[in-house]
């Protein structure tokens, strides 16, 4: 299905105005509704309960958060004036859980990178959002405010996540001039890799997406570095990849390529889990 609704995390933090500009532009191009979203949770949960003084403080902070979120919403609406259907959801709770849950209302979720320097309780965790949203997640690096869809690299691997990513990316791939599929391959597995990549190309052709280049890469560097280098050499606008992660003892662990792209890529990435 083409994108009918796009969700963007906009918390008025660093780089989020650029991200919002990108989202507004994408919503206009796809004639999609745009939903802006932010969460706020100032009080660490372990302090929130119990002490009466804390309860009182929580009430006043709750009111302040609601007011702040309303102000951010006004900024959102001001920036999204050209979008036919713009909607704001500012809710005083943890941003990561909130965005994953509200992703039910959109076809694509646009978020930014994690800022390690920040310690606010309203930060969004990009990795956790990718594995929990159940929607493709577009990760926009800092400072990027537009997304050309001319040249797209699809990072293929024979996994569920990768199969998801290819299908989820079709609305974007349909608008690209150049679609390149690459698989990181071990020495000796070239024939199998070629067959895999061809098969994905044939699938995309059924959806009227023409793959212009199929390649496999041998890794000397870490897979993520290799991918990013390929994409940069090809002047790609976007990397499409599976988002690998699983929960272990309540902590989320991420695959190497996912972690690498989350931290280092200077271009936008689309992840599916």
């Amino acid at each position: 299905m083409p994108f009918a609704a796009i969700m963007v995390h906009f918390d008025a933090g660093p780089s989020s105005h650029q991200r919002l500009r990108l989202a507004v532009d994408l919503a206009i191009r796809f004639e999609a509704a745009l939903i802006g979203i932010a969460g706020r949770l100032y009080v660490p949960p372990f302090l929130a309960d119990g002490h009466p003084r804390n309860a009182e403080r929580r009430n006043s902070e709750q009111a302040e958060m609601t007011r702040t979120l309303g102000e951010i919403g006004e900024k959102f609406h001001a920036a999204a004036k050209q979008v036919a259907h713009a909607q704001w959801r500012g809710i005083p709770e943890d941003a990561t859980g909130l965005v994953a849950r509200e992703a039910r209302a959109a076809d694509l979720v646009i978020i930014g990178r994690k800022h390690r320097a920040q310690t606010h309780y309203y930060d969004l965790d990009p990795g956790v959002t990718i594995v929990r949203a159940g929607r493709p997640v577009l990760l926009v690096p800092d400072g990027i405010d537009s997304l050309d869809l001319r040249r797209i690299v699809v990072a293929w691997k024979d996994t569920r996540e990768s199969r998801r990513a290819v299908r989820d990316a079709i609305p974007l791939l349909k608008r690209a001039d150049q679609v390149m599929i690459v698989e990181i391959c071990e020495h000796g597995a070239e024939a199998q890799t070629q067959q895999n990549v061809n098969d994905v190309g044939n699938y995309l052709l059924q959806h009227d997406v023409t793959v212009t280049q199929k390649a496999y890469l041998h890794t000397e560097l870490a897979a993520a570095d290799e991918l990013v280098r390929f994409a940069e050499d090809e002047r790609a606008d976007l990397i499409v990849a599976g988002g690998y992660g699983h929960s272990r003892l309540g902590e989320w662990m991420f695959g190497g390529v996912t972690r690498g792209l989350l931290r280092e890529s200077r271009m936008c990435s689309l992840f599916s889990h």
Partner: protein
Amino acid sequence: MAYVSLLVHVECEGELGGHVSIAAGLADLFRARLVGVAGWAPMSVFLAQEAFDNPSPGDFHLQDMKTLLDQRGKEFCAALDKPDRRVEWRSILDFPTEAVAREARSADLVIIPAIARSRDPFRALDPGSAILKAGRPVLVVPKDLASLSPRRIAIAWKDTREARRAVLDALPFLQKSDSVVIVEVLDEGRSNGASDRLKDVARYLARHRVEIITEQVRPADFIPISSLLRLIESENIDLLVAGAYGHSRLGEWAFGGVTRDLLAESPICCLFSH
């Protein structure tokens, strides 16, 4: 995206089965290509596909497998041949569950039977694992069902990744339906916000031109799936859309109770996403 390519699992022997008829019907409904896939793992799974394509004269067993699967492919293509229908065949020297999951890359929807007829572990598909590994929506067809007109569809909603996926994956079905019921079965009677959640899902669907929607919040029964089974019966539901809950634990797949029970007991086709 639309369903332009469907994949159906074909067992290695016996009748093709009702799920293949349903797959053919859906290929016509969506004007999609239909790919039949059969998997058969040799005793040694380390053999390369090349050995299978060009067996040396000594590999009597492999030669037999190849002949049988080729015949099966001809049978499949002949049975489904019809003007304006594109049918393809793939046979793979691997466990059917692995074969179906891997070949899912070339399809938008996978169709499998709820219960494998074969008891041979080298030839029997495990529906639960196929659902969790495919990365595509999987339509599970109960035994003895050979036709599907998906006019009345129910969505089993829950605020989870799997259910969000299921709704998105089911859009082509939902867009062709006459009516859609979104139902949330409450955990332990807590209803906080359930009707707001369902309205939000309904608005999302409306943006995709799915408009005849009703929402229902139902209390949980002692047996979790009986609430869903009653809804299927009372509302004459043709197709149930649901998230498939499961995870791998020590290499074994463990399923959520509702998913397991639906696989075993649903009288109608279920579309699962993970």
